C-alpha cells in the first residue's frame, strides 16, 4: 500500500469505531485493511480500540435503568436456550478448519480429526494408541491453549486448540512445522475456526522439530512472514 492511502485509512479509524460509516464504506475500509501494510493495520486497530474504550467509559453519563421485566425475560430466554447449540458450533468450527487447511496445505497433508466413519483407524486413533505417544501443551500469549499429541512412529499428530481468541480481522493464524530445512505450512485458522475449540490432524511430521504459530495477512502465506505468537517443541 502506498503511504497516502494508508494515512487516509487511519483517518477513518474514528468514524469506523463510532459506527459512523455507511455499510458500503465500512466494507471498503475492511477490504483496504486486508491489503494494507501491517503498521497501518496496527495503528488503525489501536485507534479503534482506544475509541471503544473511551466510549465505554462515557456510557456512565447516559446510564438509565431498564424495566425490571426485561431481566426476567432475558433470564428465561437463556434458560430455554439449550446447550446443544455449543457442539453444533464446534462442528462448524471444524469444518472451517478443513476449508482453511485446504488453502494452506503446502507439501504436507492436513486432515480432519472428525472424518466420516472409515474402515481403518483414523490418524487420531493411531496417534493416541501409539506406543511412543507424546503430548506438548502451551499457553498462547493472547489467551487459550494449544496442545499437540503426536507419535514419531506414526509420523502424525493431533492439534487441539481451546479458547484461543480470534485473529484480528484481515488476518489468520497459520501453523508451521519447522525442521532444519525450514518451515512448511500446516494449515491456517480464521476467526470462525478458532472458537471455542479446534482440532486438526498433522498428517506428516517428517523431521519437524517444532510447531510454530504466526499471524499472517489475508488467507495465509507460503512462508512465515508475520509475528510469531507461539511455538511448541515436538520433542
Amino acid at each position: 500500500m502506498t503511504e497516502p492511502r494508508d494515512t487516509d485509512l487511519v483517518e477513518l479509524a474514528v468514524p469506523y469505531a463510532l459506527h459512523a460509516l455507511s455499510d458500503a464504506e465500512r466494507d471498503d475500509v475492511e477490504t483496504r485493511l486486508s491489503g494494507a501494510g501491517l503498521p497501518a493495520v496496527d495503528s488503525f486497530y489501536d485507534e479503534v480500540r482506544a475509541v471503544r474504550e473511551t466510549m465505554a467509559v462515557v456510557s456512565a453519563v447516559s446510564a438509565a435503568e431498564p424495566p425490571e421485566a426485561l431481566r426476567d425475560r432475558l433470564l428465561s430466554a437463556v434458560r430455554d436456550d439449550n446447550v446443544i447449540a455449543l457442539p453444533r458450533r464446534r462442528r462448524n468450527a471444524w469444518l472451517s478448519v478443513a476449508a482453511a487447511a485446504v488453502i494452506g496445505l503446502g507439501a504436507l497433508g492436513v486432515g480432519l480429526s472428525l472424518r466420516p466413519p472409515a474402515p481403518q483407524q483414523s490418524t487420531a486413533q493411531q496417534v493416541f494408541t501409539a506406543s511412543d505417544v507424546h503430548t506438548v501443551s502451551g499457553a498462547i500469549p493472547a489467551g487459550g491453549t494449544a496442545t499437540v499429541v503426536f507419535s514419531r512412529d506414526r509420523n502424525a499428530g493431533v492439534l487441539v486448540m481451546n479458547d484461543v481468541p480470534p485473529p484480528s480481522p484481515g488476518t489468520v493464524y497459520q501453523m508451521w512445522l519447522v525442521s532444519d530445512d525450514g518451515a512448511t505450512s500446516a494449515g491456517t485458522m480464521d476467526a470462525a475456526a478458532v472458537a471455542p475449540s479446534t482440532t486438526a490432524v498433522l498428517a506428516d511430521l517428517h523431521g519437524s522439530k517444532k510447531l510454530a504459530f504466526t499471524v499472517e495477512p489475508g488467507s495465509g502465506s507460503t512462508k512465515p512472514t508475520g509475528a510469531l505468537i507461539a511455538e511448541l517443541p515436538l520433542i
Partner: protein
Amino acid sequence: MTQLLDRPDTLRTNADTYDGHGPVTADLDALLRRVAHHDREAFAAFYDATRSRVYGMVLRVLRDRGYSEETTQEIYLQVWRTAESYDPASGSALAWLLTLAHRRAVDRVRSEQASTQRDARYGAATVERATDNVTDAVISGEERQRVTACLESLTDIQRECIELAYYQGMTYVQVSEKLSANLATIKSRMRDALKGLRNCLGVR
C-alpha cells in the same frame, strides 16, 4: 517475537486495556468468559453490572423506551450467544459490550430512518448532562461527574460531532452535510474530540 512458549501458564496475556475506574471493569472480563461457557449465573451478574450503561446508551440513541427495551434484549441475547468471540487482547469486556450494543442501536436507528422521517423526538444536538436523579449501584456519582466534566471540556463543535455521529447514528458524511463542513474537517474534529476525551478520562 522471540517470546516462546514451552510450558502451560508460563506466558500471560498482556492485554493493553483500560485499567478501570471502579471495580466493575476488571470483574466483567471474568464474568464474560463464564458466559461464554453458558454459565447463567454469570450472565445474570454480567447483565446487572452493565444493564444501565447499555440501556441508557441505547435509549439515548433511539429515544424511545419500547424500541430501547427490545434492542437491549437483542443485545444481551447476542452476548449470550457470542460471548466466546470476546478477545481480551483487543479490549475490555465493557468496550466489547458497548461496541456491540451501539452497533445494534445504530442499525435500528438507520432502519427506522429508512422507513420514516425522523421526527422531533430526535431533539437538539447537545450532549445531555448526566441526570442527577439516577441512582445506580454500579456507577458512582463521581464517575458520572468526571465523564460529564470531560465532555464539557470539549469545544461545542467537537461535542456536536460526537452527538450527531455517536448518539444520532449519522455517518460522518451525513454529519458533514448537516454542519456544512468538508469531510476532512469532520474527520479531524471527530478525531480531536475522541483524543480530548481519551486524554481527559485517562484511557490508555
